[in-house]
């Protein structure tokens, strides 16, 4: 029996590369970042979340005054801060992909760390926000709005955590001169941007709209 570490080290080869685009990015050429499998994940996840968002709107429409009144109790400053932090993290990650393509792996690594740090910051801010709300008496059972609030931001938080794990895999990829496969860095970035994208929707629906 091998153990997982030995085998994955030995598999310094691949995730399945059969489905990846062989074109490295250059302006004007069509290129699928990452690999098709990660896009199955992203597009499927967007579809599932899309359903959750529409369902949120349906329940909001049944009780718009209660939802609006409850929404007011959210701290918009924290909401904006969280959004800016996640946008910044996406910027770092997007730039890290560009650095990796230019073979500047030290820079790509640094930028990935910064992106991940922003992700950790997002989680910390969210934890603070939740504890503040709970202390003020707004719990998951308070009403429908708050149940949606905690559940949507909670399942998003799960995605952020998974994203940090994936960024960790990107770091591992970048640190090893025998790897540094562009499609791996791109795939991790694609997932991370999806996390950002989902938050943009949550922010609009739960914090801002009226």
């Amino acid at each position, binding site marked *: 029996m091998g153990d997982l570490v030995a085998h994955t080290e030995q*598999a310094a080869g691949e995730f399945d590369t059969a489905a990846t685009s062989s074109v490295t990015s250059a302006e004007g050429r069509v290129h699928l970042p990452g690999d098709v499998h990660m896009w199955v994940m992203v597009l499927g996840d967007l579809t*599932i979340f899309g359903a959750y968002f529409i369902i949120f709107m349906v329940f909001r429409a049944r009780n718009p005054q209660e939802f609006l009144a409850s929404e007011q109790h959210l701290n918009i400053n924290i909401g904006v801060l969280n959004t800016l932090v996640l946008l910044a993290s996406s910027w770092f990650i997007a730039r890290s992909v560009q650095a990796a393509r230019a073979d500047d792996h030290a820079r790509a690594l640094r930028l990935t760390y910064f992106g991940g740090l922003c992700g950790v910051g997002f989680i910390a801010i969210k934890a603070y926000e939740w504890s503040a709300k709970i202390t003020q008496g707004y719990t998951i059972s308070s009403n429908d709005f708050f*149940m949606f609030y905690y559940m949507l931001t909670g399942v998003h938080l799960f995605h952020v955590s998974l994203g940090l794990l994936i960024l960790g895999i990107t770091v591992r990829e970048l640190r090893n001169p025998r790897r540094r496969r562009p499609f791996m860095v791109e795939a991790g970035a694609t997932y991370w941007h999806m996390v950002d994208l989902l938050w943009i929707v949550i922010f609009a629906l739960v914090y801002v709209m009226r």
Partner: protein
Amino acid sequence: MSSTVSTDSSPTAGTVDPARPPRAGKRDVWLVFWIVPAFYTAFGVIFFALARVMPPPRPDVTVDQMVHFFHAHALTIKIGFGVLVLIVGGAGISNGIVVYHMKRMTVGSVMAYIYLGSMSVGALPGCLLVAFSFLTAVYRPGRDPQILAMLYDLGLLSYVGSLGCFSTAYFAFAVAILYDKNEIFPKWLAYVNVWQIVTEVLTVAIFVSKAGPFAWNGVNSFWLGTVIFGVWLVCVIVFLKKANELQPADEPPLD
């Protein structure tokens, strides 16, 4: 121990079209495989038509209504869940054949054992508890309504509710698929497992919700979760079949 799958199993390999490898696989594994869709079909009939657990009856009802539910469906509950406790080994078989193919991956066996252990632990709270609760509820007519109400809640909370053991199994499965160089399963199947974890996370709210989308009969907790589970199950069965087909009949036995 795991070995890289040999791609050339036939003596007349020169005529093999790599895009359409000949149907292969081992006879005993095929036998086991066909039990999987058979079991889940029976499972569907039991849970949807007989036990009336899918879709579940509402949580926001009175004790009298819960009592009425058990009276109205006592016969089909006894038949359905009575059969289930006999055939529930099919779940073990389904887990077993997945583990069998996971052990053929290059990542070694530890993820397979996590899958096996986690899914096995989950079988009682996740599937059998509702069977035993409901069978107990309909066992003696005239049981105290408060006790019937408790069995109603216990059964449905345990069945629909989140279970971290399943999430762990899905996670192990996903990791194994992504790191497997033998390509036993397609990489995107790993992400279908991640969606399953998402639905488990979403379902945790049923323990504090009595009505609405997050209750155990709600659109988020139950309906979306069931749809995604259906997708997962179909994909796993289809790709178990493919894994069987692509396995050379003369592949040496696993450790």
